[in-house]
Every structure is written in C-alpha cells, then in structure tokens.
C-alpha cells in the first residue's frame, strides 16, 4: 500500500539523455587552425581509469591484426583501425616504491619515476610525459595543457595509507615537485579555454580594461623583481614562482587578444547530475580545445585512484574500490567488469567525436595520440604488470588495428617515448625506459 504513487521516469531518461554539445562546423573557419608554427598540429591525451581492470574481460583473444574484441573493449570495435591495444607493459617503479598500493600506481604512472612516500609538503615524483609535450607546445597555444577529472578532489587528509593525496588526485606533474590539480568543474574548464570576458561591455571599455590589466601585470613584474632580491631563499622560491606565473599570464593575455572568435559552445552551468553526461561534457571540452587549437595536451581522470564512486545507473550500487578487492568472487568481478565496460563506452564517445571532427586533411583523431587505461592491472592484488592500455589515433604515422604484444615486462615508459615521437617531441629516453616501443613494427 502506498499513499502516493510515484511517477514514471524511465530508466532510459535516467541514464541516457546525454547533453552532448555539437561541434558546429559553421564555426570552423574561424576556429580551425593549422599549427601556428606551420604544418599539422598534433595532440596528445591520456584518459585514466582507476582501481584496475578485470583483465580476463579486457584482454582480446588472438594477437596482431587478427584479434577479437573482448567484452570490455567491444564498444571500440567501430574504431578498430584507429587503435592499438598494447599488452605486457609494466610499471616497474610502482612495484618497487613504498607507499599505498593506489598512490604509487597513479603517482608514478606517467612519469615512470618513484613517488616519495610522504603525507607532507615534500611530495616528489617526476615530470610526466604529457607535460614534456606541453612544454614543447606551450609557445604555440593559449593553454599549455588541460588536466581534467570527473571526481571531486576535495577530499582532505592522507589518501592512501600514508601517501599524499597528491599521488591519487593527479596524474600530471609539471616537474618532479609539482602535481597539477585536476579541474573538475566543466564551467571552469570553459573559462580556462575561452577566458572570462564580459561580452556585454563595449569594445572600447574592454580595450581600456585590458590595458589596465596589462600595465598592472607589467608593474607588478618590475616591483616584484626588486622585492625578490631582499628575501631569504625559501621566501624567494615562492616569489619566483609568482614571477614565472606572471610572465606566463602576460603571454597568455597576448595570445588571447589575437583570437577574438566566439566560443563554439555555451558556457556549461556546472557539473551535470548524471555521471555519463558529466564525462561526455568533459570530453566535449577537450575536443573543442583540440579543434580550436587552444591546447594540444590534455589528461583526464575518469576517477581518482582509490575511487569509491557507485554506479547505480548500471546496476552497481556498490563503491568501486572495495569491489575491486574481489578475492575471486564472481559477483564482485561481474560488477567491476560492468564499471570497466561503462568507462570504455564513454571513451568510445570521445573517439567518435574526434573521428567526426574534420581537422586539416583528416580528422582530429587522425592527428592525435591518446592513451586509455590505468596504472593497475589486477585491482585485487594491486598488480603493476601487464597493464590495461590502448593507444588511439594516427598522429605521426601511427597505424592502428592491432593487439600488440610487447616483449614481457617492457616498461610502460617505452610506449611514452613512442607517443612523444608521434607528436614530434623527440626523446631518446623517458623515466625508466629501456628503448622505444614502436607499435608499427
């Protein structure tokens, strides 16, 4: 007996109804830009998923071009020619490091360097490969790189048994001491890309205000340089950071003044209620940023390492992390697989968007290299060997369509060297790499 009868909201309405933002082709002439340094712009992205993967449901059958998509990877079947699944890669650093099993995985992943075991302010890992690329492209785009996340990073305290939250909240590190905080609010990402200009003001007023801002920054730079010389060394380091940022902001304002185009999507109002909509919106923003050549580097954490998000919309009302310590229990494994599948479906949305956005003589996907996967294979054991990874995109002549079995225990850094190479950032070594893993070979 019920006193009031609930109204119908179909399941579909609850989980579907993505509010995807179209990339309007009519906007393109103003937006699409060949690389400012001449030639075709190439992009690098990382899409990170936490807590490991059910490897039995991830690993395809067969190898080389002749493989069968696994249950988890099935949503990527339409993109077979654009992707390579890579087996046997290992993160030896995480295996050796001290600290929480999740912290050392995400904390070492993209830098292939050991994260220092600490909860203090002395966090230390390494420059990540995406940031190496960002350094190279920084001069040519308005925003050097994007770090996005789809999970609130407001948690405080130590995140993983004595390891700093920095290691589980961030995967990109600007240098060995500086983790880059993820931006979780789509609205802030939008403002980061397109600035926070008030369009209701007349061009004259806007120009005057811009002039005032510039002169404030200029004078600050001068007077702060004088100030620095009177400070002690530790204070000085902080104020140097201020100066560096000041210079970068000046440069960014200069670049922004050259572009006067209207953003090709509306400013998002905040974080969408449904997780799928949220993730898709974050992918949209990355696609727009690439399309408009506002940045060429982005990393995104679908969840932070150790995530306890629940997924009731796909029949998994249990928190993710405890589920992954499944001890072989088939119900738990099934639920983790469901989450793994759901993430890959969302990633397929991103690939679809990139593939259908024209760019130069092809599509955005043709000129990108995108790493998808995580820093833990078996979440139950916190295993760092045979990581679940795939690379999408054909930037720099990458061919796709294969399940590439690397030699056993190849460091994942060897793949990063290859990816960097594909976007024109030549490096012989990276982190603990032992060579270059050529996926075309």
């Amino acid at each position, binding site marked *: *007996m*019920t006193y*009031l*009868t*609930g*109204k*119908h*909201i*179909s399941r579909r309405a609850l989980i579907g109804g993505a509010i995807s933002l179209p990339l309007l082709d009519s906007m393109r002439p103003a937006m699409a830009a060949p690389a400012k340094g001449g030639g075709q712009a190439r992009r690098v992205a990382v899409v990170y998923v936490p807590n490991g993967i059910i490897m039995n449901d991830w690993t395809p059958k067969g190898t080389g071009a002749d493989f069968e998509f696994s249950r988890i990877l099935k949503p990527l079947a339409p993109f077979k020619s654009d992707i390579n699944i890579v087996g046997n890669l290992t993160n030896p650093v995480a295996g050796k490091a001290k600290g*929480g*099993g999740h912290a050392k995985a995400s904390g070492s992943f993209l830098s292939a360097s050991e994260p220092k075991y600490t*909860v*203090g*302010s002395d*966090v230390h890992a390494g420059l990540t490969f995406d940031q190496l690329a960002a350094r190279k492209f920084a001069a040519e785009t308005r925003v050097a790189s994007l770090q996005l996340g789809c999970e*609130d990073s407001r948690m*405080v*305290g*130590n995140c993983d*048994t*004595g390891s700093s939250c920095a290691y589980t909240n961030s995967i990109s590190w600007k240098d060995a001491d500086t983790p880059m*905080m993820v931006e979780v609010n789509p*609205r802030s990402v939008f403002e*980061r890309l397109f600035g926070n200009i008030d369009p209701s003001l007349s061009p004259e007023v806007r120009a005057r*205000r811009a002039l*005032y801002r510039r*002169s*404030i*920054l200029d*004078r*600050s730079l001068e007077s*702060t340089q004088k*100030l620095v010389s*009177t*400070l*002690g*060394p*530790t*204070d000085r*380091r*902080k*104020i*140097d950071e*201020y100066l*560096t*940022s000041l210079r*970068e*902001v000046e440069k960014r304002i200069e670049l922004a003044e050259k572009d006067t185009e209207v953003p090709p999507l509306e400013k998002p109002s905040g974080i969408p209620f449904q997780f799928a909509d949220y993730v898709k919106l974050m992918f949209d923003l990355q696609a727009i940023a690439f399309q408009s050549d506002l940045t060429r580097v982005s990393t995104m954490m679908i969840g932070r390492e150790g995530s*306890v998000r*629940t997924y*009731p919309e796909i029949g998994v*009302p*249990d928190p993710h992390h*405890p589920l992954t*310590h499944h*001890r072989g*229990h088939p119900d*738990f494994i099934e639920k983790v697989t469901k989450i793994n599948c759901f993430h890959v479906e969302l990633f397929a949305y991103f690939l679809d968007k990139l593939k259908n956005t024209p760019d130069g003589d092809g599509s955005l996907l043709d000129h990108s290299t995108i790493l998808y996967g995580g820093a833990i294979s078996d979440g139950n*054991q*916190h295993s760092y060997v045979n990581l679940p990874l795939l690379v999408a995109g054909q930037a720099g002549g990458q061919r796709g369509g294969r399940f590439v079995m690397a030699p056993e225990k190849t460091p994942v850094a060897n793949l990063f060297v290859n990816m960097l190479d594909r976007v024109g950032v030549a490096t012989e070594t990276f982190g603990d790499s032992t060579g270059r893993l050529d996926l075309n070979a």
Partner: protein
Amino acid sequence: MKKNCVGCHNAKVQSGDVNLSAAHNFDGDRELWERVTAKLKSGEMPPQGAPRPPAPEINAVTRWLDGEFLRQDRATKPDAGRPTARRLNRSEYNNSVRDLLGVDIRPTENFPQDESAFGFDNIGEALNLSPVLLEKYVDAAERVVRTAIFGPEKLKPANIHYSAPVRLNELLTNDTKGRPLTPEQVKDYDLSGLSTRHAAHFLHRFPVDAEYNFRLVLNGHRPNQSEPVNPAFWVDGVKIKDWMVDATDLEGQIVEVRAAVKAGEHLLSMSYLRNYHGLPASYNGPEPSNRKAEPLIGTRGKLTEKDIETLRKYGTKIKTDRVETRIDNRWESLDIGGPFNQTGGPSKGVFVCATKDTPCARQIVASFAARAFRRPVTTTEVNEFVSFYHLTRKQGDSFEEGVATALQAVLVSPNFLFRLERDPLVKAAGADQPVNQYELAARLSYFLWSSTPDAVLLRLAAANQLRQPAVLTAQVQRMLKDPKSRALVENFAGQWLQFKNIDVMKPDLERFKDFDESLRYAMRRETELFLNNIVSQDGNVLDILDADYTYLNERLARNYGIPGITGPEFRRVDMSKNPRGGGILAHGSILTISSYSTRTSPVLRGKWILENLLNAPPPPPPPSVPALDDTKVGQSASLRQQMEAHRKSPACASCHSKMDPLGFGLENFDAVGAWRDVDGKFPVDASGALPGNRLFHGPVELKKLLKDDRAAFVRGMTDKLFTYALGRGLERYDRALVAGIADKLPAQNYRFSQLVVEIVKSYPFQMRRRGNLTAARLGETNP
C-alpha cells in the same frame, strides 16, 4: 634487546628493513627507536610464535626509552622553524577581501584546489602559485574591487534548473529499515514535510541580493478520493509560501513564487504539508477524506478501451514495469529565475574622503594598501599604486575607475597574496628573532579568523603593545568570541576531523533512501554548532570526545530516532539520557564520513579514531589485503563474525586488534549515523575491549573509556592546532613544546582558549628564523 630482537633484526636478515645491531647512535636513529617503542607497547613485537619476555621486562625497556626521548626533547633547543612566505589559500583570500572591502562574494569558488600537507591547506611550503591561479587572482581582484566601488555586478536574469533527486520507492507504511509502522507512527510524521521523503532540497549559492523567481514542478500521483495536496516552499527552513493543488495526477503541475533572497548559500526546500492527512479512509491516516471515489483502472495487463477513456478523463497514470515503479518522485524540478530588482550598492568604507581629486585618491589608495599589506606602506609603494590612478584618468575614465585600477593593483601584489615576513637588516644569519608587531597581528588573525587583522589588532601593533602577555591573552579571548572565529571551526576542525568531507559523501541511494541534501546540511550544521560553541564559548576540549549535549533539528532528530524535536531550526539538546550520548563520535557527519557508501566499516571508524582522536595512526596494511565480502554482510554471517575471521591472520591482527574494537563500539550507528539494533539479520554487538582489557558495551561506555586516553587526545589536538597555527609541519624540536602545552591543559580545565593562548605565546609562533639575507642579496643562494 640482544636476546629477543636482534635475532631477526640484524645486519644479515634485517626483517622489516630494521637492523637493530647497527642502530647504536640513539640520537641519530630516534625515529627507528620510536618505532621500536611503539611496536613493543602495542605487543606487535616480538611477533606471535616468537619467544616473548615477561611484561615487566618489556615495560622496563619502553619506560627507559620513553625517558630517553623526553630527555632528548628537553635538551633540544626550541627553533622557530624554516620561514616560508605563505600564500593566502582560498578561504583566507575570501575572508580577507570580505574584511578589506566589505564584499562577501567568495570569488575563489572556482579557483583550483589549494595544495595541502600534514592534513591542512594552509601550509606555506605546499601552497603553489600556478599561472592558472594567478590568472584567477587577476580576475578576482577586478571583480571584488568593482563590486565594492560600483556595487554588485548587474546580472542579467538567467534560469537555473535543478532536477529533483531520484527517490526510490519504499512502502511508506514502512520505516526506512523496512519495518511496518504502527498506526501511531503513521500519524506521527513531520507535518511540515521537511523531514519526509516527499521533500526535495537544494543547496544553492545566490550571486547577489535580489528577487528570484522559484518555479516548482510537481510530480507523483495522489490517490483517488484524496483531499488536495498542499505543496510548500522554504528558504533556509523558513516557509515562503504554500499552495493547494487539487489534482490526482500531479505530474507537470506548476506553482510559482517570487521572493527576495540575500546573496550567499541557502538551503531551498520543497515538500508537501500534512501529506498523510486527507487521504482516503482506507489508508488509516489522520483526518481521512470523505470525498467520493472516481472510477479506477487496472494496474496489470493491457489497457482496455474503457481504461483509456478513464485515463483521458482523469489523467490517471498506471505503472507499467518494475523499474519504473521503483522510482518515487514527488517533484520534477525547481527552476530559479533571476536576479530581478537587484539590490545592494557600493560598499561603504572604501572612499575615506569625498573630494574626488588626486590627494583624495592618494589617501584612499594609501589607507587601503596599508590594510591589504597588513603593515605601514612606503611612499614609493603608494606612488606606484597611485600611478595606476593617473593612467586610468588619462584614458578619460572617471575618478572611481581610477581608484578601482589602483586597488586592483594592490590586490595582485605579492605583498597582499603572500604573507611576507621581512628580516631586519641586523643580526647574524640563522639566528631566531621575534617577528615584528604587524607580522604577529597577521599570524594571529590568519590563525583564528583565516583573515586579515582588524583595526584593533593593527592599532595595537602600531602602538607596539600586541606582544605584551596580558594584551595578547585579551586579544585571543576577544577574537575567539568574534563570529569570525567560525573560520577555526570550518578550516581547522573541518580538516582535522575531516567533517568537511560530508559535502562530498554519496551514501548509497538504495540502502539509505532517506539521505538527501537536507540531511547532509543538518549533519554539517550539528558539528559546526557543536564545535563553534567550544571555540566561541571557551568550552572544554574533552567535550569533543564525549559530551552530554548536541544540536539537533527535526530532520536530524528523526534520522537519529529522537522524538519530540519539531521544526527546521537547531537547538541544544540534552543527550545524557540517550543511548547515543554526545561528542563528535555520535555525530552523523563523522559516522558517515568514516563509512562506505553502502555499509559501516569498523575498520575505517577505528582508524579514524586512532588517527584523529588518539594521535596513533596505524601503519599501512600489507599489499593485496583481502577485502570484506559485502554481499555476505548481514546475510550468512554478521559483519563482526566476518571481521573476527579476518583478524585470525597474524599479519592483520597486530593493527586490527587496535582498530576494530573501536569501530565495533560504534556499530549501533549505521552508515548515515542512524541508530540500529540489528544489522541485516543479526543483532548488533557493540561490545569490545580496549588494550588493557578495558571492556565496554555500546558507544556510551566506549566514549567513557576514550576519555581515559585524554592525554593522548589532547596531545594529538595540540599537535594539529600547532601545525595549523604555524603553517608548517612539526619537527622534532617542536615536540617538547607540544608536550609542554598539552600538559598544562588539565590544570586549565581543558579550556580551548588556554590551548590557543599557549600556542600563540609559544616560541615558534612568536619567532622567525632568519634567512641567509646577505647571501640572498648578493644573489648567490640557490634555493
């Protein structure tokens, strides 16, 4: 030692990376020996199965080691610690501009998260300044200054849409645990509807003072034959309006109201008044309706022609499949339109003169810069900022615009964004010296208010009086009584006890059908009010461990199962007769943040207590820890039985024997803090034993025992408050100070203000270690 320890911990074997045979240098290996002491005390070492010396022997060793540590600490000279310029963090920035300009728009809302260390986000060393953040500072300076000078930004009306949260259907004749309600219980419900499952709540931040339009879209279906429904709308628990809607099918029905709202965060609520009243008599509710029945249609099988006709006539909907019937929404959405008729003008106090000429501009800029920099400013500095006024005037802009540009420049200066403490030009490098009076004022105000010093503090600093012990004590007392000391609750306690995390918890909708924004809000309020009382009324800090009172409103009281508390406003409630008891461990906020979204975790709760209340964080677990099987909890075996099995493994036992009993003592509280006597099929067993065979039954007895550990608690709290006050991690040379302060508290009746006064008067709070000034000046020092 040699007999019992070195067998495993020697140069060759080095079990656990520990080699005791080499650790002769007691001073240099202090940390190692502290670990040894801890292991011996906890009984983890020697491990099970190894020969164990009798307890008196072990005690003799630990006593001797403790004595040595104490001797060492006493012999260590106090040290001011490494100075680091501290960047204002988000809340410090918000509060500072609020107090400087009278503008409370919290511009840092979309700033990147501040880096934290040692559990706090005000640690100078950790706080970085990225280009993204600097860009935000530039934007924020413009926004706050323009708001202060020209009044709040004129916003175009816009619409903000909130979908009502999805509620899963549970028989409303059952309580939230699925137990049938008695007829009395059916009649005893929250007449306002604010605590019922028909309510939808939204926490919304309004940008400006103005009128806003609220459009409530209803959903759901009132049974045939009922009296009209009575939807209503509240802001912060104050009813704005209610309506009568006489329809069976409520989907898409709209009611609207326009109301004036102040800028800032408010809790918006919509619900149905007297919802169980006026139902058909068959529902056994209060005041049954005596309306005539309308024709009904079947709820199974295909619709007949006649059904379709009835549907057309009465708009009745029928359930079609299982999934859909599980969703039980009484609300579709809330749309907020506005702002309209915006109010609020420029803030007073910026224009300290009225002549609108250059001398006046100069006066405004000089007084503002001095307040913003928390110190007197030099003529050179003032000239520099006044030059922006001239620049703006030259462009043809007004006097006010000129002042605005100058003030913006002040707010992006490192002298405002960082708390810079300057070394005087005398004395040898490396020596400690007192910070100057202005710097002391800033240390005080950012410690207790997370904000800039007020006029009183600056005046005392100027008069060189602030450092006088009596003045300092009086100022601390005054500052704690000031409402601005709420910052200490929010920023210090919020991070120390982590109750801020309640904002991001997502209890499982299926299991905790009652959890909503209003409960989340109420949980946070309870803890804030409780701690705020201790801070501003100079309470006893041991109340945090155990108290006989708390703060409740109807929403929270119903969640806790405490009768007789009606209405949305909070009040102090005596808990001495209630089995929950008081203190932070009876707060829904703490009980929720230390649970998983689906279930309680005695381990998480035990760990939370050890880390935050008893100053004894457990070490990390070994890799590949098997987790609990959630599906079996409450089914094949109780959670407790399962965990006891888990603890049989010696690898786990050493820590879990400390953590788990603490958590078990709180098992009467479910994962959202509601009281329970059974978990699944099993009665809750909330008994256990703390080390030393101290037995307890239930949370009240557990908390009594924890009060025995008050020394550890006070020590831990002092440690955290000291870290927060200094904005740096504590070093070994701080230990004697922390211990000394903590030891003084019992004689002071554990009063909070005494703890603060002791910290404020302590050596590192008053002193600053000199940087290597000469070398830095010559540009020779590398950081």
